Protein backbone atom coordinates (compact mmCIF):
# COMPACT_ATOMS: atom_id res chain seq x y z
CA UNK A 1 0.00 0.00 0.00
CA UNK A 2 1.14 3.53 -0.64
CA UNK A 3 0.62 6.70 1.31
CA UNK A 4 1.90 10.25 1.38
CA UNK A 5 2.23 12.61 4.31
CA UNK A 6 2.56 16.35 3.94
CA UNK A 7 3.99 17.39 7.23
CA UNK A 8 2.64 20.94 7.32
CA UNK A 9 -0.92 22.03 6.66
CA UNK A 10 0.21 25.67 6.37
CA UNK A 11 3.56 27.30 5.61
CA UNK A 12 3.98 31.04 5.94
CA UNK A 13 6.96 32.89 4.42
CA UNK A 14 7.91 36.42 3.50
CA UNK A 15 8.35 37.39 -0.12
CA UNK A 16 11.94 36.80 -1.22
CA UNK A 17 12.69 34.15 1.41
CA UNK A 18 13.15 30.41 0.76
CA UNK A 19 10.25 28.00 0.61
CA UNK A 20 10.29 24.44 1.98
CA UNK A 21 7.23 22.19 1.71
CA UNK A 22 7.77 18.77 3.21
CA UNK A 23 6.52 15.45 1.90
CA UNK A 24 7.19 11.91 3.07
CA UNK A 25 5.90 8.85 1.30
CA UNK A 26 5.41 5.15 1.84
CA UNK A 27 5.51 2.76 -1.07
CA UNK A 28 6.04 -0.94 -1.66
CA UNK A 29 7.85 -0.48 -4.95
CA UNK A 30 9.70 2.28 -6.76
CA UNK A 31 7.15 5.06 -6.92
CA UNK A 32 6.66 8.02 -9.15
CA UNK A 33 6.30 11.25 -7.19
CA UNK A 34 4.70 14.50 -8.20
CA UNK A 35 4.07 17.98 -6.87
CA UNK A 36 0.96 19.84 -8.03
CA UNK A 37 -0.15 23.39 -7.32
CA UNK A 38 -3.72 24.60 -7.13
CA UNK A 39 -4.42 28.31 -7.08
CA UNK A 40 -7.77 29.46 -5.67
CA UNK A 41 -10.63 28.41 -7.91
CA UNK A 42 -8.19 27.02 -10.47
CA UNK A 43 -7.34 23.54 -11.71
CA UNK A 44 -4.35 21.43 -10.78
CA UNK A 45 -1.04 22.29 -12.38
CA UNK A 46 1.94 19.96 -12.44
CA UNK A 47 5.05 21.55 -10.90
CA UNK A 48 7.45 18.66 -11.28
CA UNK A 49 7.76 14.90 -11.19
CA UNK A 50 10.23 12.19 -10.24
CA UNK A 51 10.15 8.95 -12.21
CA UNK A 52 13.38 7.14 -11.25
CA UNK A 53 15.76 9.35 -13.21
CA UNK A 54 17.77 12.16 -11.58
CA UNK A 55 17.02 12.52 -7.89
CA UNK A 56 17.06 16.33 -8.03
CA UNK A 57 14.13 17.40 -10.13
CA UNK A 58 13.63 20.90 -11.47
CA UNK A 59 10.16 22.12 -12.21
CA UNK A 60 8.38 25.21 -13.36
CA UNK A 61 8.46 28.63 -11.70
CA UNK A 62 11.80 27.99 -9.98
CA UNK A 63 10.63 25.06 -7.88
CA UNK A 64 12.67 21.93 -7.37
CA UNK A 65 12.45 18.76 -5.30
CA UNK A 66 14.91 16.11 -4.21
CA UNK A 67 14.05 12.45 -4.00
CA UNK A 68 15.74 10.86 -0.98
CA UNK A 69 15.04 7.17 -0.86
CA UNK A 70 16.79 6.65 2.48
CA UNK A 71 14.54 9.24 4.08
CA UNK A 72 11.47 8.41 1.93
CA UNK A 73 11.11 12.12 1.32
CA UNK A 74 10.37 14.37 -1.63
CA UNK A 75 10.49 17.91 -0.26
CA UNK A 76 9.66 20.87 -2.48
CA UNK A 77 11.85 23.97 -2.36
CA UNK A 78 12.22 27.37 -3.96
CA UNK A 79 15.05 29.83 -3.23
CA UNK A 80 12.90 32.95 -3.22
CA UNK A 81 9.14 33.14 -2.77
CA UNK A 82 6.93 35.37 -4.89
CA UNK A 83 3.49 36.62 -3.98
CA UNK A 84 2.12 34.61 -6.92
CA UNK A 85 3.33 31.38 -5.26
CA UNK A 86 0.55 31.61 -2.67
CA UNK A 87 -1.55 28.52 -3.34
CA UNK A 88 -2.29 24.98 -2.22
CA UNK A 89 0.40 22.40 -2.95
CA UNK A 90 -0.17 18.67 -3.20
CA UNK A 91 2.39 15.90 -3.03
CA UNK A 92 1.33 12.80 -4.95
CA UNK A 93 2.73 9.28 -4.96
CA UNK A 94 1.92 6.86 -7.75
CA UNK A 95 2.74 3.21 -7.41
CA UNK A 96 1.57 -0.09 -8.78
CA UNK A 97 -1.65 -1.27 -7.23
CA UNK A 98 -2.65 -4.89 -6.76
CA UNK A 99 -3.92 -4.98 -10.32
CA UNK A 100 -0.58 -3.79 -11.69
CA UNK A 101 -1.82 -0.33 -12.61
CA UNK A 102 -0.45 2.93 -11.29
CA UNK A 103 -2.88 4.72 -9.02
CA UNK A 104 -2.07 8.20 -7.66
CA UNK A 105 -2.58 9.02 -4.00
CA UNK A 106 -2.74 12.63 -2.86
CA UNK A 107 -1.36 14.17 0.29
CA UNK A 108 -3.66 16.38 2.34
CA UNK A 109 -2.12 19.52 0.87
CA UNK A 110 -0.02 22.40 2.20
CA UNK A 111 -1.27 25.94 2.00
CA UNK A 112 1.59 28.33 1.19
CA UNK A 113 1.06 31.86 2.46
CA UNK A 114 3.39 34.58 1.21
CA UNK A 115 3.61 37.86 3.09
CA UNK A 116 4.79 41.07 1.42
Amino acid sequence: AQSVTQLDSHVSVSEGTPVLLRCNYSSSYSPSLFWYVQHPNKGLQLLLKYTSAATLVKGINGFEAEFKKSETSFHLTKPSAHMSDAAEYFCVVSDRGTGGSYIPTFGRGTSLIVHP
Partner: protein
Amino acid sequence: SAVISQKPSRDICQRGTSLTIQCQVDSQVTMMFWYRQQPGQSLTLIATANQGSEATYESGFVIDKFPISRPNLTFSTLTVSNMSPEDSSIYLCSVGSGYEQYFGPGTRLTVT
Protein backbone atom coordinates in the same frame (compact mmCIF):
# COMPACT_ATOMS: atom_id res chain seq x y z
CA SER B 1 0.35 14.78 -23.05
CA ALA B 2 -3.43 14.58 -22.71
CA VAL B 3 -6.02 17.32 -22.72
CA ILE B 4 -9.10 16.64 -20.64
CA SER B 5 -12.40 18.49 -20.74
CA GLN B 6 -15.28 18.14 -18.35
CA LYS B 7 -18.94 19.08 -18.57
CA PRO B 8 -20.53 20.83 -16.83
CA SER B 9 -17.90 23.10 -15.32
CA ARG B 10 -20.24 23.85 -12.45
CA ASP B 11 -23.82 23.23 -11.37
CA ILE B 12 -26.20 23.91 -8.55
CA CYS B 13 -28.57 21.05 -7.87
CA GLN B 14 -31.36 20.29 -5.47
CA ARG B 15 -31.05 17.49 -2.96
CA GLY B 16 -32.47 14.18 -4.07
CA THR B 17 -31.63 14.74 -7.72
CA SER B 18 -28.78 13.27 -9.79
CA LEU B 19 -26.08 14.86 -11.93
CA THR B 20 -24.01 13.21 -14.63
CA ILE B 21 -20.53 14.60 -15.24
CA GLN B 22 -18.82 13.96 -18.56
CA CYS B 23 -15.10 13.57 -19.12
CA GLN B 24 -13.57 13.70 -22.59
CA VAL B 25 -9.90 13.02 -23.37
CA ASP B 26 -8.19 14.00 -26.60
CA SER B 27 -6.37 10.66 -26.87
CA GLN B 28 -7.11 7.03 -26.15
CA VAL B 29 -6.30 5.99 -22.60
CA THR B 30 -6.65 2.73 -20.75
CA MET B 31 -7.39 3.99 -17.29
CA MET B 32 -9.45 6.93 -16.13
CA PHE B 33 -9.77 8.07 -12.55
CA TRP B 34 -12.49 10.02 -10.80
CA TYR B 35 -11.61 12.15 -7.77
CA ARG B 36 -13.59 14.22 -5.31
CA GLN B 37 -12.26 17.34 -3.63
CA GLN B 38 -14.45 18.50 -0.79
CA PRO B 39 -14.17 22.14 0.29
CA GLY B 40 -10.77 22.84 1.79
CA GLN B 41 -9.70 19.22 1.42
CA SER B 42 -7.33 17.17 -0.68
CA LEU B 43 -8.35 14.93 -3.55
CA THR B 44 -9.86 11.57 -2.74
CA LEU B 45 -10.02 8.81 -5.33
CA ILE B 46 -13.58 7.66 -5.96
CA ALA B 47 -12.99 4.96 -8.55
CA THR B 48 -10.86 3.74 -11.41
CA ALA B 49 -12.57 3.08 -14.73
CA ASN B 50 -11.21 0.82 -17.45
CA GLN B 51 -12.93 0.57 -20.79
CA GLY B 52 -15.03 -2.54 -21.10
CA SER B 53 -15.09 -3.50 -17.44
CA GLU B 54 -16.77 -2.49 -14.22
CA ALA B 55 -15.25 0.42 -12.37
CA THR B 56 -13.25 -0.32 -9.23
CA TYR B 57 -14.43 1.73 -6.27
CA GLU B 58 -12.37 2.87 -3.31
CA SER B 59 -13.41 2.28 0.25
CA GLY B 60 -16.32 4.52 1.17
CA PHE B 61 -17.67 4.84 -2.35
CA VAL B 62 -20.32 2.60 -3.89
CA ILE B 63 -21.65 2.06 -7.36
CA ASP B 64 -25.24 2.89 -6.43
CA LYS B 65 -24.20 6.36 -5.34
CA PHE B 66 -21.54 7.01 -8.00
CA PRO B 67 -22.28 4.95 -11.10
CA ILE B 68 -19.61 5.24 -13.76
CA SER B 69 -19.72 4.51 -17.46
CA ARG B 70 -16.73 3.97 -19.74
CA PRO B 71 -18.08 3.31 -23.22
CA ASN B 72 -14.83 3.89 -25.09
CA LEU B 73 -11.17 4.83 -24.65
CA THR B 74 -11.70 8.60 -24.71
CA PHE B 75 -14.85 9.14 -22.65
CA SER B 76 -16.31 8.47 -19.22
CA THR B 77 -19.19 9.68 -17.09
CA LEU B 78 -19.66 9.87 -13.34
CA THR B 79 -23.15 10.24 -11.91
CA VAL B 80 -23.73 11.60 -8.44
CA SER B 81 -27.03 10.07 -7.40
CA ASN B 82 -29.63 11.13 -4.85
CA MET B 83 -27.54 14.13 -3.93
CA SER B 84 -27.29 15.68 -0.50
CA PRO B 85 -25.46 18.85 0.58
CA GLU B 86 -22.53 16.64 1.68
CA ASP B 87 -21.93 15.88 -2.01
CA SER B 88 -21.01 19.49 -2.66
CA SER B 89 -17.49 19.16 -4.00
CA ILE B 90 -15.29 19.49 -7.02
CA TYR B 91 -15.24 16.31 -9.08
CA LEU B 92 -12.18 15.74 -11.25
CA CYS B 93 -11.44 13.31 -14.01
CA SER B 94 -7.85 12.17 -14.47
CA VAL B 95 -5.83 9.97 -16.80
CA GLY B 96 -2.33 8.67 -16.41
CA SER B 97 0.11 5.83 -16.51
CA GLY B 98 2.25 6.38 -13.45
CA TYR B 99 4.84 8.45 -15.26
CA GLU B 100 2.34 11.04 -16.41
CA GLN B 101 -0.86 12.15 -14.75
CA TYR B 102 -3.27 14.67 -16.19
CA PHE B 103 -6.32 16.25 -14.63
CA GLY B 104 -9.43 17.80 -16.01
CA PRO B 105 -10.49 21.29 -14.91
CA GLY B 106 -13.08 19.84 -12.52
CA THR B 107 -16.82 20.15 -12.06
CA ARG B 108 -17.86 22.31 -9.12
CA LEU B 109 -21.07 20.89 -7.68
CA THR B 110 -23.21 22.67 -5.10
CA VAL B 111 -26.18 20.84 -3.63
CA THR B 112 -28.87 22.92 -1.95
